[in-house]
């Protein structure tokens, strides 16, 4: 058991972490917004935590708060990412579909270049020597942070889906114009969905900085956005379990196949291709399809025989 946790503890926590990042993309997607900004907020959250935990300017706070500093970093990261999400979201969400995706990629690039050039973020080397949350010694102990966050997020997502806000999200996803006509303000709800995703990604980032021991500009890149998008698409984008399953699976596959050496990347690629070809609804979507009876189909069009007046030809 100890051996197992020593070897796979880090992986298990990264699986949960990947699921959470997938969920951060899932919220905007619920309102029909294809945003790739999650890694940006993830990086910002990590930087906020790393700076608060290592910068000499905050030494006084750290001494005064002790372990209370960690929840403070989460709070700070969530707050900063929320505000940043609002600032970016309001103008960016005037765009739709692929244009929004492009704008969010631009946002990630801007953040990356800024963090490379600031001295407070440590430039290209980044910030290192980040103290361990609550004196955790082994990587698997971080499950005590990421696990509850995942459960809370899933509960939140479930409640959200059933609420008025969730229904508004779905209405906008299905048809923005119609939703607007029905009195659902699209901008308001789109920004809300975007900010929820931003706050979640920021929180995950803040928890990840001590988990990874170091933080640098490589954390929030375009590659990461594509990876997170793959979590959601492979897992299934219409169900809260989709991003969680997709994130866990895509993180685990290359690691569990380590014994295959270079071939593990080939297998990983195959999983991506096969899943996207044969499971267009994602893994969870496909599983749901098995259990649920097929949706009612339109009755086959029966040729309508019209009796000609007069009794025939």
């Amino acid at each position: 058991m100890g051996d197992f946790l020593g070897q796979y503890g880090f992986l298990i926590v990264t699986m949960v972490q990947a699921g959470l990042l997938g969920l951060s993309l899932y919220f905007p997607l619920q309102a029909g917004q294809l945003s790739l900004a999650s890694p940006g907020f993830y990086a910002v959250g990590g930087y906020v935590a790393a700076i608060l935990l290592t910068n000499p300017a905050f030494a006084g706070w750290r001494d005064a708060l002790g372990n209370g500093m960690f929840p403070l970093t989460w709070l700070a990261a969530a707050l900063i990412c929320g505000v940043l999400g609002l600032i970016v979201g309001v103008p960016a969400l005037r765009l739709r579909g692929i244009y929004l995706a492009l704008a969010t990629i631009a946002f990630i690039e801007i953040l990356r270049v800024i963090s490379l050039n600031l001295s407070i973020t440590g430039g290209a080397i980044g910030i290192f020597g980040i103290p361990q949350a609550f004196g955790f010694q082994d990587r698997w102990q971080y499950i005590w942070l990421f696990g509850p966050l995942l459960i809370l997020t899933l509960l939140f997502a479930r409640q959200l889906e059933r609420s008025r806000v969730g229904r508004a999200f779905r209405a906008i996803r299905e048809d923005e114009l119609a939703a607007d006509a029905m009195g659902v303000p699209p901008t308001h709800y789109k920004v809300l969905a975007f900010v929820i995703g931003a706050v979640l990604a920021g929180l995950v980032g803040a928890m990840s900085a001590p988990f990874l021991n170091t933080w640098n500009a490589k954390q929030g890149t375009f590659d990461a956005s594509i990876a997170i998008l793959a979590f959601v698409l492979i897992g299934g984008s219409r169900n809260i379990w989709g991003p969680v399953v997709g994130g866990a699976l895509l993180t685990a596959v290359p690691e569990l196949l380590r014994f295959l050496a270079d071939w593990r990347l080939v297998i990983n690629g195959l999983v991506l291709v096969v899943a996207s070809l044969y499971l267009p609804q994602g893994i969870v979507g496909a599983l749901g399809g098995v259990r649920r009876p097929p949706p009612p189909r339109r009755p086959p069009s029966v040729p309508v025989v019209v009796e000609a007046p007069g009794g025939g030809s």
Partner: protein
Amino acid sequence: MNRAALTIALALIASVSAEKVQTPVPIGVALAQTSNTALLGQEQVIGARLAEKHINAHGGIGGTPIKLVFQDAAGDENSAINAFQNLITKSNVVGIVGPTLSQQAFAADPIAERARVPVLGPSNTAKGIPQIGDYVARVSAPIAVVAPNAVRQAMKLDPKIKKAAVLYAQNDAFSVSETEAFQKAAKDQGISVATVQKFQTTDTDFTTQVTAVLNADVDLVILSGLAADGGNLVKQLRQLGYKGLIVGGNGLNTSNIFPVCQKYCDGVIIAQAYSPAQPSAANQLFVKEYRAQYKKDPPQFAAQAYAGVQVMTDALRVLDRKKKLAQWDLDELRAALNKQILAGKYNTPLGELRFDKEGEILQKDFYVAQIRMKDAKTGTFVFLK
């Protein structure tokens, strides 16, 4: 619940670690075998493999062969941590050579530090690596030591140099640290830095930077980048009419640069932590074995990885003489190995090496070379005295 689980886990870990050292002696190697860092990592893997072959062909450690256990650390932090965890808990290695990048070292080395497993960084050159912990040392000289030599050499070639332009890849940790060392070295030599230009390792068009350099009217260009971007920058500088000397950083110390800047590479001065021309017997043997297999001179990354494996084995040999390795408890050996690594003196292909008490390398020789191109594709690094 939390505490109970912790206690059980700790007890299990404790029971596991009373293990003996395996034979052949497993040494972990966590390098970038995939990802975009693999360009460097593959050279390191070759170096490590050569070391293993050489050591085992010469009787291993007092008759016991060594076995390198490779785990791909790719180019990201997560993979490096996973590779380290695998080596430490599954393969029960006595020590680890790796990872490739400094950023990865900042993520993965604390794992080894907590598990009390000695780590030798083969190519981690950023400031603060040996300070990660007691169990972390490196065989790669920090840039602050290597870079000034090249600037001094440029002054020797052209004593009239007054103004320099400094260029660096701002998204590469190595180049960012190196440029600081270069700028300081230039100022120490009485050269004024007229302009500092940044680029990205992924850039291909450097017109903006080159124009700024030409406008500044400098007689020395100091360039920190990697092979592809650095090579292209050299090429575009020459194509647009820059005539003065060019000093390239350690990232350009690879023959991979020749196909990129082709005949324009000629004359570039390179700071090296390793030179195939190093005259020691250890190096000449390494160069011979490398040439026999790969038909070219060994690059620095291969030599450093070779040195990493060699240092670990030499230290193990000393311990083996005290008590046969197979009789040691793994934990005990790891701790003793760490002490022994720092205490010893090693004759490696890099020249004579020692470590200070933090694990920082004390390397005796550094080298400066100038590129000489035979034709468009092939060239050599000519060792400058």
